[in-house]
């Protein structure tokens, strides 16, 4: 960690691909330039370690997904007999493909809603003075702490009574609810770091608080919004408990729930190959999602010039 800090902000920024608005370029390059070679190789080494540790367990799942049923238990890290059968199997059945569509749709909608609703509440918490502010913060934390296993059965009954059981809405609503605590906490932590002068300047220019929020705060909090969006998306994407409890058909079943319906060759056989293949496939949207939003994080950081 020490090395990391010693690397110095300026030299990194200067050599990075981000246009930092000219900020900090001056003296940085000269000082950083001499150590550049060793720094690069150091980073390559660090990055390699991180990538390997992150990906080896995934590679193991990929390996399992390409193994034949006969060799799935052989313990070799690299399959001896490769097969596409597991992937063919899951894409042959609407069980998985429909679930994939449901997962993407439900997770995206929930994320957008959670970030929007969460951002509004977080702004109020971070910036405005009104009675009940602390109550909201406590309330949000409260529902984040209650064990969800004792909540699904009442929700199941409620959903059936009001007719949203086994619908997209029926999953979006709890996902929105249970990701709000994280969204509110994360976003308010970011909003409060944005200098108040900006809003004040906006107010002087005649902007209403709402305009200040949407035109000034939200764009500036982009890194926080994107971070929150990624975390919420992954939360919705990975949820099993609500998905298995509040759905019953392909019309709304998401992938983690669908995996519970995979069948092996017999009652006792774990369909480990299909499960691994499904896991690999549903990791791809996550990567795409992150890649898309990475740009926003970067953009948010560079526009941070206003901070200084």
């Amino acid at each position, binding site marked *: 960690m*020490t090395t*990391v800090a010693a*690397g110095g*902000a*300026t030299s*990194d*920024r200067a050599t990075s691909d981000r246009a930092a608005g000219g900020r900090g370029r001056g003296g940085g390059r000269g000082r950083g330039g001499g150590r550049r070679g060793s720094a*690069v190789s150091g980073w390559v080494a*660090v990055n390699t370690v*991180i*990538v390997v540790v992150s990906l080896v*367990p995934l590679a193991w*799942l990929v390996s*399992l997904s390409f193994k034949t049923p006969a060799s799935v*238990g052989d313990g*070799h890290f690299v399959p001896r007999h490769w097969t596409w059968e597991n992937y063919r199997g899951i894409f042959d059945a609407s069980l998985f493909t429909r679930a994939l569509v449901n997962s993407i749709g439900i997770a995206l909608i929930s994320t957008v809603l959670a970030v929007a609703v*969460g951002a*509004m509440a977080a*702004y*109020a*918490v971070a910036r*405005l*003075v009104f009675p009940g*502010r602390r109550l909201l913060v406590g309330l949000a934390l*409260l*529902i*984040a*702490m*209650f*064990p969800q*296993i*004792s*909540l699904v*059965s009442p*929700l199941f009954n409620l959903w059936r009574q009001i007719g949203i059981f086994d619908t997209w809405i029926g999953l979006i*609503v709890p996902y929105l*609810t*249970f990701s*709000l605590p*994280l969204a509110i*906490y*994360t976003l*308010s*932590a*970011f909003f*409060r770091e944005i200098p*108040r*002068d900006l809003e*004040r300047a906006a107010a002087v220019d005649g902007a209403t608080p709402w305009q200040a929020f949407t035109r000034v705060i939200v764009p500036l909090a982009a890194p926080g919004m994107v971070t929150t969006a*990624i975390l919420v998306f992954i939360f919705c994407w990975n949820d*099993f408990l609500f998905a298995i409890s509040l759905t019953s058909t392909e019309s709304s079943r998401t992938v983690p729930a669908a*995996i519970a319906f995979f069948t092996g060759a017999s009652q006792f056989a*774990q369909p*480990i190959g299909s499960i*691994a293949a499904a*896991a690999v496939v549903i*990791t791809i949207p996550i*990567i795409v999602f*992150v890649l898309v939003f990475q740009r926003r994080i970067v953009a948010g950081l560079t526009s941070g010039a206003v901070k*200084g």
Partner: protein
Amino acid sequence: MAGRVPSAGPGVPSAPGAGPAPGVGRVAVPGRGPRVGLTAQQRAQRRLGWLLCAPAVVVIVAVAGYPIGYAVYLSLRRYDLRFPAQSSFVGLGNYATVLGSSLWWKALAVTVVITVVSVVVEFVLGMALALVMHRAVVGRGLVRTVILIPYGIVTVVAAFGWQYAWTPGTGYLSGLFGDAAPLTSQTWGVAVIVAAEVWKTTPFMALLLLAGLALVPDELLRAARVDGAGPWARFTRVMVPLMKPAILVALLFRVLDAFRIFDNIYVLTGGSYDTRSVSILGYDNLFTALNLGVGSSLSVLIFLVVALVAFVFVKGFGTAAPGGEREAGR
């Protein structure tokens, strides 16, 4: 704290989290004045605050209110789905049952160990990862994307992968410990569970900390260096204080989640060898034994323990916590 932050010059009007900012803001900001006789602006602010919070409050109360209330109600009753005729009000009897059982205390101890160890390790690793991602000269995009993959994998599936990996014969990792099967003892079982948990959720920590790091102004670090602060001092005295809100959120939510750990244990050991967490215990009593009374009281107790932890956290972080006194009136 404000005193430790090196003078940042006029370019940094508010050093967030580091105390009240000097200068213009204080007097002009509404909310500091006497409560009586709200100005029009204060009233507008109130209204906007309520309006902005309304959607969140409505959703939270509508969706979570009834189930939580129902669970609390059930926890006060003898209510076993298999014996519907025996339902009755038992007051705190279910709580006495749970608190009088060694199963609860053993599970609580295991859960605390798993929570503390995994969150500490995750925090250290997550901070290191965040710094790497923030500072890396090369391959930053790659690292940022790659580290999120573990977090993105469905927990149950990842756990299946680990279970295969650690089982002699079917896995590549079991050989690390000779012939022994690591998942067949409490110590190693918990270690494997923690490892799986750390691998999976460190990215969560790292991402939140990274976003916090992004808010640390370079100018402040530069100024600190000019003032002769070493790397460690810059980290502990400039970066960490400024990142406090992000650190709080990351730690708090990880603790809340880690304390309710379920999937990894369920797949890896099924709770055998006293590797059972309180959530596994809750699942067994609610879903398997269908004893909704005792199961619900377990849930409420888990909630109370978590709430206590959260309370300590929020108090410990003081004004860095959302809703803390400082920020709204700054």
